[in-house]
């Protein structure tokens, strides 16, 4: 069987670590579109992505993952639609140090509902070591309330293993629900 390429999306709020996660696992020098951030009230960091991030990872099977990072702010939602086209699945990152990370997650789950409702998303909660609240239980409760089945992990996206774990869990999730949409193939486990 010929090797395949799969497109995956990284979504989530500004500062959640989408650019970092992609740079951390990409085998090619990642493409980033960081510019100076002027919205220090929204998030105090030097730069922010305004178009996309791009990186690539090859699986043990030879299949290639094309990773696309989205800009976090909703004023860039046109990029979400552009980048979301043809995506097999999505990693949604949450920054637990934000004022209301549960509301953030709910917003992104709704914005990416097409992919989320097809059980093709995994949620990564970051900065839980310094900001333990809300705990994973609160996130599970949110997913239950929204009737969404998505694996939930606490991750540090600066760690390559953590990002690969997110991708691995995402593929297991897609594989488990592959019968929902038999036309899509799915690659083997990354591990």
């Amino acid at each position, binding site marked *: 069987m010929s090797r395949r390429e799969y497109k995956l999306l990284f979504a989530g709020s500004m500062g959640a670590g989408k650019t970092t996660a992609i740079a951390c696992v990409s085998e090619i020098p990642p493409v*980033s579109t960081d510019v100076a951030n002027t919205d220090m009230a929204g998030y105090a960091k030097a730069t922010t992505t*305004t178009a996309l991030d791009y990186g690539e990872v090859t699986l043990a099977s030879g299949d290639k993952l094309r990773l696309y990072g989205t800009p976090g702010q909703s*004023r860039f939602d046109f990029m979400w639609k552009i980048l979301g086209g043809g995506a097999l699945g999505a990693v949604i990152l949450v920054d637990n140090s934000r004022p209301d990370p549960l509301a953030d997650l709910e917003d992104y789950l709704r914005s990416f509902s097409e992919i989320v409702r097809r059980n093709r998303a995994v949620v990564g909660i970051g900065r839980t070591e310094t900001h333990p609240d809300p705990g994973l239980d609160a996130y599970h409760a949110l997913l239950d309330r929204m009737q969404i089945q998505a694996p939930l992990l606490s991750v540090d996206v600066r760690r390559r293993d953590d990002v690969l774990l997110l991708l691995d869990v995402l593929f297991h999730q897609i594989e488990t629900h592959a019968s929902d949409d038999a036309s899509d193939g799915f690659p083997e486990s990354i591990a």
Partner: protein
Amino acid sequence: MNPHTPPAVADTLGRTESAVCQKMLDALAESLPEMLGAVVSTADGFEIAAKLSQGLSPATLSAMTSSQLALAEAMSAETGLGRCINVVIEADRGKLVMVDIPGRGQKRLLTVLCADKATLGAVLWPVRRCAAQIGERLDASLD
């Protein structure tokens, strides 16, 4: 900040800066009759000043310009072509020209929307000149 809350224009964008840019956009419209609209934005896509007909959102155009120029910049770098000077979109019924505003302060962007009858060269020159003039005025305000 909730991602669905419209982001407030950052405090660093003074009213003076908006006023300066607004005046320059008015002057550009005078010198470029084919101009249908123009926006000055921050590099991360916030509106600073706009001169647009009804129905066009300066906030959306600012965000889109930010994406376009950031992607063009990444592509120029990827291909070893150096700095991106401008992005031009030629469409069925008009043209969009997007340029960086040169200056010592924070990066700003200028987007100009023109009717189809305008030739590209006739648009590029006044747009670049306008960007340079805005940059000079903003630089002067830094001193």
